[in-house]
């Protein structure tokens, strides 16, 4: 064989092998550089303004949503005014299920980002137990920033033992928006009790109106209905006991909740299991459904209808012998921001301090409820709707419905998500659902 042919063959083989190994080598380089950054971060105790510092936030917030825009705005100002070497890289996955799978895969592979979004759920507790997350309560108190937050916003981020490892960036209340025109057509008023609520649904359905539009694809809107009666009966005490294996779903409180879901499910829009967020919202806005349970973050979509008198809202109706008051319902501060202990150095801390001090006002200017205590800026006109909701939240009680997906372990949550849809569709008996969940939770508590 000629020399030319031998050289060509060697070159071709080398090109093929290069393609095979290039993916691996870039991963090795990035891991090495992360290790270098981490070790240098540990030795630095003061802000280092000389080396380039990129902090990655793996986010689960809507791109160009209020939080995304506010944080980007503040990060830009921080780079311009405080630390020119600092930059914030935001990697967003808005679909929460996909985000969680990506986050868990990264963590399982030892590649936890600098900043993540996570609820104070059992998985977060596992990360805390492994020493992976910064104690945010301690951090805020050390920096004198703790009292800048609204108490409920902080309380929502706490574990049941009072510790807190996540930072709130939003503050929400959930309500049932209703179509006033449809209601007045059938002589209905905003229900104050659960019995009135069910009676309202029946009247609407009997008259060919979709009583409630529900986003079944995202699961949590369906889970809220499951949680309603137990919250009225016990606050969050019942679900905490269920989580710990100390209470059964076959008890009265549990069965009341499951039976309520089975009953109210018949009033959901047809095909709700495959109805996504936008479709459910549009069903309501187009006047095809009479009620829609959603949070204050949709006040922008509702504003025109609200101002023209077509839409209003009511909070969680009451039950007999309720332990929680009428001014106590689902309030939350959303998914929290958590920090990787390995990379939470003075540089990152400096930025987060700046973020907290400067976040509330620009966030509120985007018609959002600030989790920090602020004076509403005078340079923009807040709508009547915003001011009314803000007043409601300021006058709420100390109890708030904490979503069940923040209490349950990942496997129990996955099983509940799949099967509660069947209960709402009338395809699974409430007792069978209770049995299944009791068994699943017991197995997972034992592990």
């Amino acid at each position: 064989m000629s020399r030319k042919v031998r050289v060509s063959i060697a070159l071709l083989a080398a090109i093929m092998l290069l393609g095979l190994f290039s993916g691996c080598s870039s991963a090795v380089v990035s891991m090495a550089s992360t290790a270098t950054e981490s070790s240098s971060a540990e030795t630095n105790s003061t802000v280092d303004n000389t080396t380039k510092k990129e902090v990655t936030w793996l986010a689960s917030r809507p791109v160009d949503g209020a939080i995304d825009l506010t944080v980007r705005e503040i990060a830009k100002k921080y780079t311009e005014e405080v630390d020119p070497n600092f930059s914030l890289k935001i990697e967003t996955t808005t679909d929460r299920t996909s985000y969680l799978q990506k986050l868990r895969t990264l963590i399982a592979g030892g590649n936890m980002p600098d900043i993540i979004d996570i609820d104070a759920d059992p998985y977060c507790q596992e990360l805390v137990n492994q020493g992976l997350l910064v104690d945010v309560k301690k951090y805020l108190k050390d920096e004198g920033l703790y009292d800048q937050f609204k108490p409920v916003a902080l309380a929502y981020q706490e574990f049941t033992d009072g510790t807190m490892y996540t930072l709130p960036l939003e503050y929400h209340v959930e309500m049932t928006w209703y179509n006033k025109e449809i209601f007045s057509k059938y002589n209905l008023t905003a229900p104050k009790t659960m019995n009135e609520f069910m009676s309202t649904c029946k009247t609407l359905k009997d008259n060919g109106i979709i009583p409630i539009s529900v986003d079944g694809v995202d699961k949590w809107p369906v889970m809220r209905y499951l949680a309603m009666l137990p919250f009225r009966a016990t606050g969050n005490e019942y679900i905490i006991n269920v989580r710990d294996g100390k209470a059964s779903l076959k008890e009265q409180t549990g069965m009341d909740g499951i039976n309520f879901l089975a009953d109210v499910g018949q009033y959901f829009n047809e095909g709700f299991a495959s109805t996504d967020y936008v479709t459910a919202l549009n069903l309501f806005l187009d006047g095809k459904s009479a009620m829609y349970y959603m949070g204050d973050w949709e006040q922008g979509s509702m504003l025109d209808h609200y101002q023209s008198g077509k839409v209003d809202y009511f909070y969680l109706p009451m039950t007999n012998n309720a332990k929680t008051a009428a001014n106590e319902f689902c309030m939350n501060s959303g998914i929290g921001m958590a920090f990787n202990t390995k990379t939470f150095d003075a540089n990152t801390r400096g930025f987060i301090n700046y973020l907290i001090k400067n976040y509330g006002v620009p966030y509120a200017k985007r018609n959002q409820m600030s989790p920090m205590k602020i004076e509403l800026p005078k340079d923009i006109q807040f709508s009547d709707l915003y001011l009314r909701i803000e007043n409601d939240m300021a006058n709420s009680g100390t109890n708030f419905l904490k979503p069940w997906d923040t209490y349950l372990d990942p496997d129990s949550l996955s099983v509940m998500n799949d099967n509660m849809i069947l209960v709402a569709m009338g395809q699974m008996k409430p007792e069978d659902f209770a049995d299944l969940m009791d068994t699943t939770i017991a197995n997972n508590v034992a592990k």
Partner: protein
Amino acid sequence: MGILKSKKYYLTFLLPGLCFYLFSVFYPILESLRLSMYQWNGIKDWKFIGIQNYEVLYRDRVFWIAVINNLKYLAIVVGMQVFIGLLVAIMLTGIGKSRNLIKTLYYIPSIITTIAISQLFRSIYSIEPMGLLNILAVKLSQGQLVKPWLSDIHTVLPAVSIPEGWRFIGLYMVIFYSALIALSNDVIEAGRIDGANQLQLLLYIKIPMIIPVIRMSLIMCLTGALRGFDIPFLLTNGGPGYFSELTTTYMYKKAFSSLQFGYGSSIAVFIVLESFIVVWLINLLYRNNQVEE
């Protein structure tokens, strides 16, 4: 030209591809087998539990529902891809003009991304706003057949199977068409002379002559259908409940949602074994047919 005669050079050029296959397919299968003997949630240390995951798997009602669903999914997907593919290929051999245009049109779905296909069929199946299928149902059945195809427990499994089946009809059509046009004209001419009509030529000469190609296509299609995941995952994620759950979507849920990586790995091992058994059965059937001849 000496290169083409020497086995040494064939091996040299096959080696990188083989290495990549071993690294990206074979090694992960071995790792899944190892991980299936452990309990791991992605954070804590691995805990060795032997065959406990397989014992749980045996008793897991949802897993067996997923296995049965997968077999139904397989029947629809194979039925569409192989049989409709073969039918279209046969019809293509019978037309002269526009053959290339029809081939291209049939092939296009196999190059469209999965996300686009899922969105397409989500819109087609939609009840609010009404999608194509429900619009047709209104016209053809005065609204009797209008339903939420992806939420109805009786229709959801076929609904998630059909997009996958439709997607690769073109691919198998191209394979079978190439096989049909490569057949020796002498044999077909001999059959014609003996008095065979078109249907007899097709059933007794052409199709038997392309049996090896059909066998390979069945193997590809069956093993692909046993590993089918993306479209059902995107459309319904196994829901409502477990009515469209496949072994692959269940494996993914258990590993990445429930954080039971060991248990998810045991399901992965089951899928690999299932694929081996299917290939073995097809080869057995082929060998038996050959012996009978």
